[in-house]
C-alpha cells in the first residue's frame, strides 16, 4: 500500500501546483485579451527585460529543485519499503511471478505451490495471487516470452516483467481484500484480457492455503 499512499500525497502536491500555474497563465492570457480592447493603444517600447527574465529563470530553477527534492524523497521512501535488503528479516512470502503470452503464473518457491488460471474476456477463471495481509511479500517478476508489465491500478504499483531478467518488488497489503491486476505493457493480440487477481487473506488462512 506504500505506493498508493505516496502516489496520493505526491499527486495532490503536483496537481495543486499544476492548477496554480494553469490558473496564473490563464489569468495572464485573459488579461491580455481584456487589455487588447482598450482604446489608448500600445505604449510599450521595451522588447525584453533581461533582469526580470534572469530572475524568473532562477525562480523556475528553484521550483524545479523543490519538485525534484520532494518527489525524489518520496521515491526513496517507497523504494526503501519495497526492496528487501539482506539485513531485513525474510519476507513472509516470496512469489515468482511469470508473465507469458497471455496469462500469469505464480510460484510459491518455499512451498512448492503453483497457481495459474485462464485469462479470457470473462474473468471467472483468472489466476489469483493469494498473499498474507499485513506482511511483506516479495515478488520476483520475469517473463517467458516478451515484455509484460505487472500492474495493480488500485495500489498504484507497476513493474515490468522481462525475459532473461528478474525485477523484484516487495509489497505489504495492509488489509484483506481483492484487487484486479493487469498487464500494462502491450504484448500481442490477447493483451487486453491478461488480468489477474491479488487476494490478501489473514496470515493464518494464508498458511493453511499454502500448506494445502
Amino acid at each position, binding site marked *: 500500500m506504500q505506493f498508493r499512499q505516496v502516489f496520493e500525497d505526491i499527486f495532490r502536491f503536483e496537481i495543486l501546483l499544476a492548477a496554480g500555474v494553469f490558473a496564473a497563465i490563464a489569468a495572464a492570457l485573459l488579461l491580455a485579451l481584456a487589455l487588447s480592447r482598450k482604446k489608448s493603444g500600445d505604449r510599450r517600447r521595451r522588447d525584453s527585460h533581461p533582469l526580470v527574465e534572469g530572475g524568473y529563470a532562477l525562480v523556475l530553477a528553484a*521550483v524545479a529543485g523543490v519538485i525534484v527534492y520532494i518527489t525524489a524523497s518520496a521515491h526513496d521512501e517507497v523504494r526503501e519499503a519495497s526492496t528487501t535488503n539482506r539485513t531485513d528479516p525474510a519476507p513472509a512470502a516470496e512469489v515468482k511471478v511469470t508473465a507469458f503470452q497471455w496469462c500469469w503464473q505464480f510460484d510459491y518457491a518455499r512451498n512448492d505451490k503453483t497457481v495459474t488460471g485462464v485469462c479470457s474476456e470473462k474473468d471467472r477463471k483468472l489466476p489469483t495471487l493469494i498473499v498474507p495481509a499485513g506482511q511483506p511479500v516479495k515478488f520476483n517478476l520475469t517473463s517467458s516470452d516478451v515484455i509484460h508489465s505487472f500492474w495493480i491500478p488500485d495500489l498504484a504499483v507497476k513493474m515490468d516483467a522481462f525475459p532473461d*531478467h528478474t525485477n523484484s518488488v516487495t509489497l505489504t497489503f495492509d488489509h484483506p481484500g481483492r484487487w484486479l491486476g493487469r498487464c500494462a505493457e502491450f504484448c500481442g493480440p490477447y493483451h487486453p484480457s491478461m488480468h489477474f487477481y491479488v487476494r490478501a487473506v489473514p496470515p493464518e488462512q494464508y498458511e493453511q492455503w499454502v500448506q494445502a
Partner: protein
Amino acid sequence: MTSRLTATEPPGPQPTHEPPRSWLASTDHKRIAILTLGTALVLLFAMGGLALAMRTQLAQPDSDFVQNDTYNQLFTMHGSGMIYLVITPMALALGLYLVPLQVGSPTVAAPRTTMLGYWLYVLGAIAVLSGFLTAGGAAKEGWTAYTPLSSARFAPNVGTDLWILGNFASSLGMILIAGTVLWTVLLKRARGMTMLRVPVFSWAMVATNLMVLAAFPSLLIALGLLAVGRMSPDVFSSNVWNIGYQHLFWFYGHPVVYVMFFPFVGAVAEVLATFARRRFFGYKATVLSLLAFAALSMSVWGHHMFTTGQVADDYYSLTSIALLVPAGIEYFAMLGTIIGARLRFSVPMLFALAFIPQFLVGGLTGIMVATPVLDYQMQDSYFVVAHFHYTLAAGSLFGFFAGFYFWFPKATGIMLGKGLGHVHFWLMVVGINATFLPMFWLGMEGMPRRVASYLPTDGFGTLNFISTVGSWVLGVAMLAFAANLVVSIVRRRTRRAADNPWEAHTLEWATSSPPPPLNFDAAHPLPPITSFTPLLDLRRKHVKDREPT
C-alpha cells in the same frame, strides 16, 4: 558568412521542365517543402481516420467494430504514422519552406540532397502503408516496436519488415532535410543577417535540426538492430536485445518529441508577435532557452523506462523536470508579447492563443509522468495517452494550423477563408478537449493503453463514450479544414493575397506571394536587415519619418 548567390545572378540554366518533373526534380526549397507538407497533410487525414476507427471501437465496452488484430494494426500505424510520417515531416518542411526566406537566402544549401530527403520520405511512407496489403497485415507492435515482441518469432509478418524499412528510409530522409536547412541558416544568410537577427521561428528550426542530427541516427541504429535481429535471432545477447533496444529507441524517442514541438512554438511566436503588432518579447532569452531545451532533451530518455527497473529513475526525473525552466521562459516570452498589446483576432491568432493553455496541460502533466512515484501508476495507462496528445494534438497541431493559416497566403498567393477557418478552429477546440481530457481520468482509474476492448464491469464506458464523441467532432473539424482548402483554391481569383497581408515582421513577407524561384528579385529586393524584425523596423521608421518634428 553571406551567400555568393544574389537575386540577380541565377545559378546556371533555369529549369524549363513541365510538371511533374518541375516539381519532382526541383531544386527550389519551396517546392520540395510544399511536396513534403502536402504528403504529410494527406497522411494526416489517413492517420486521423485510423484513430477514428479506434475511437469508434472503444465507444462501448465489449464492442466488436474491429477485431483485436486489426485494432493492433490501427494503433501501431496511427502512432508511428503520426510521428514518423506526419508531424516530423510537417515540422521540418515548415522550416525548409521558411528558413531560407527568413534568413534572406535564395536557395536551400544542397537542394538535391534535400530533394533526395523527400524521395526517401515518400517511398518510406509507401513501404510502411503497403503493410496493410500483405497477408499478415500491417505492423502491430506499437510505434515503439519493443523487442522481443517485434522479433521474427513473435511478429513474423511482412508488414513489420516493411514498417522497419519504410521508417528507416523516411527518417534518413528527415536527417538529410534537417542537415541542409541547418547548413542554410548557419552559412547562407544574407548580408546583415547576423545570428542574433535570425527570426524566432528560424532559431526554433536551428534547435530542431540540431536535435534531428543528434538523435535520429540512434533510431536508424535501433531499426537496424531490429532488422538484423529479425534475420539472425542469436546475434545479440538478451541484454542488448531486450533493454538495449529501448535505450537506443528512446535516445531518439524523446528528442523527437521536441522536434515535433519547437517548429510549432516558433510558428506560434511569429503569429503572436505579428497579431500583437510588436516585436517578440525576450528574444535573446527565448533563443537561449531553445538551445538549452534542445541540449537538455538529449539527457531525459530514461523517463520512458521508469518501470523497467533497469535505469536510474531519479537522474532522469531530475533532467526531465529541469525542462520546466526553458519551457517556462518560452511561456513568459509568449505572454509578454501579448499582454498590453492591441491584438487582432485573425484565424492564425486564434490557433496561436489556444495553443498557450492547451499545450500547458500537456506540459504540466509532463511533470507528473516524469515523477517516478506517479509514473509507476501512469506509465502505459491512458493518462500517458492523454498527456502526449495534449502536447502533440492540442499543442503542436494547433501550432501547425496557426502557421498554416498564417503562411498559406505567402506560399500560394491565396487567402484561406475566414468563416470556415472559424468553424475549423472552434470545432477543433471542442473536439480536442472532449477527446483527450477524459483520458486522464481513464488512466487514473486503471485503463491500460493499447487495448482493443474493455469489460462492462471496468466502469470505463462513460468516459470512453465522451472521448469518442469528441473524436467525431474532431473529424468534422478536419472536414471543415479540407473544405476551406478546396473552396479557397477554387475561388483563388477573388482571394488574392497581398505580399504582406498580415503586416508581419520577417523577410519572407518582403517578397511576392508566392515568392519568385530565387526568393527575392529585382521587383522584390531584400530590405535592410536591422534586427530580427526588419519589416517592422521599416514600418516604424516610415511612421517616424512622416511625423512632424
